[in-house]
């Protein structure tokens, strides 16, 4: 799974990446994570509030650190 975390910020983005990687590892799902920090790239996904999460090119979440349950759902899909 190709996961991008959008945002250029205070630490919430790093928290989001760490959380996704941790849960993916626990579930044994192979993911590649990438941080997108350029404002233009963030806006090209139509995202205004960060952190945003893009999985395989589709925006699944915006505006905050996603909850544990939510991440598990994405990774099981």
């Amino acid at each position, binding site marked *: 799974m190709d996961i991008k975390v959008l945002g250029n*910020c*205070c630490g919430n983005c790093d928290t989001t990446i760490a959380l996704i990687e941790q849960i993916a590892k626990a579930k044994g799902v192979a993911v590649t994570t990438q941080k997108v920090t350029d404002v*233009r790239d963030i*806006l090209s996904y139509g995202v*205004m*509030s*960060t952190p945003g999460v893009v999985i395989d090119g589709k925006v699944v979440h915006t505006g*905050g650190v996603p*909850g544990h349950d939510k991440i598990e759902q994405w990774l099981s899909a």
Partner: protein
Amino acid sequence: MTELTASLLRQRSLRLPRQYPRVFLLVLALAWWVLYAALMPASEALVAALPVQRASRLGGAVQFFLYDAPNVLLLLTAVVFVMGMVNSYFTPERTRALLAGRTEGAANVMAASLGVVTPFCSCSAVPLFVGFLQAGVPLGVTFSFLISAPMVNEVALALLFGMFGWRIALLYMGLGLTIAVAAGWVIGRLRMERYLEDWVREMPRVQAIPGGAKLTLPERIDAGWDSVREIVGKVWPYIMVGIALGGAIHGWVPEDFMASIMGKAAWWSVPLAVLIGVPMYSNAAGVIPIVQALLAKGAALGTVLAFMMSVIALSLPEMIILRKVLKLRLIVTFTAVVAAGILIVGYVFNAVL
């Protein structure tokens, strides 16, 4: 065994908010109220039990801390929880769709008001700013939103409410909104669109779509908890340090000490407070307990409000972030217009009260 009990307990405690969210909210409000009502007697008893004289310097400082710290934290948790639920109705996408294509004037008032209830994190300021413009929200209206969102936030309001009472909290909110509306309107009148960075002006126009699925009440309750975890989890150390400093000021700084520096008589105190406050960066959490202590030592309310507003609304880091999208001239104008608004508020207050 204990783990099993814990997981059972967790499941049971989760069932209530899921199945009977209204009942859960009622129980929560009641529990909060009982806790809050018990606070003052508890802190009195605690100070009385300590081996310090209440009238002594240390006694005064300790009591200020023991009462204010739990008081403010309880209020903050409640306000942040409620605002987290309210925020779930106002996503930035929805706010943008509400503001897109409106003409300045009434839209400035709308933008400033939406700034209070729309979730906002300073790291989102730049994408939000460009996203608003892209969808056809006028520049001045975008600024009204961008000024009110950080200035009139739930942390500031909860702290003001806890330490000064609801009158001052409402006053702060009213003045903050007024400054946001007026400053945004002025910036709109000045026709400064050409001082946006070129790449911002070249961004393709987009259609504002409200988006977002409708949430259920239990999901909104979850959103409330999430923001408590995120916001209270982040600001409580600042509050503790702020209140400890405030306590020290209460105990050791002599009465009326601040009157000569930050009192009404000194005409230069308001501009000085703004000048010091603008580059400073602190969140409301750290600055308000200190401000409360200064007020008790004879500082004038207008001066103190001006200081607080300029610390919260304007900061050097914010200007550096905005430099990505604004040319220097627009940043200077923005800072000057907002600072002028704060200055007026400070003077008017010192004159009236």
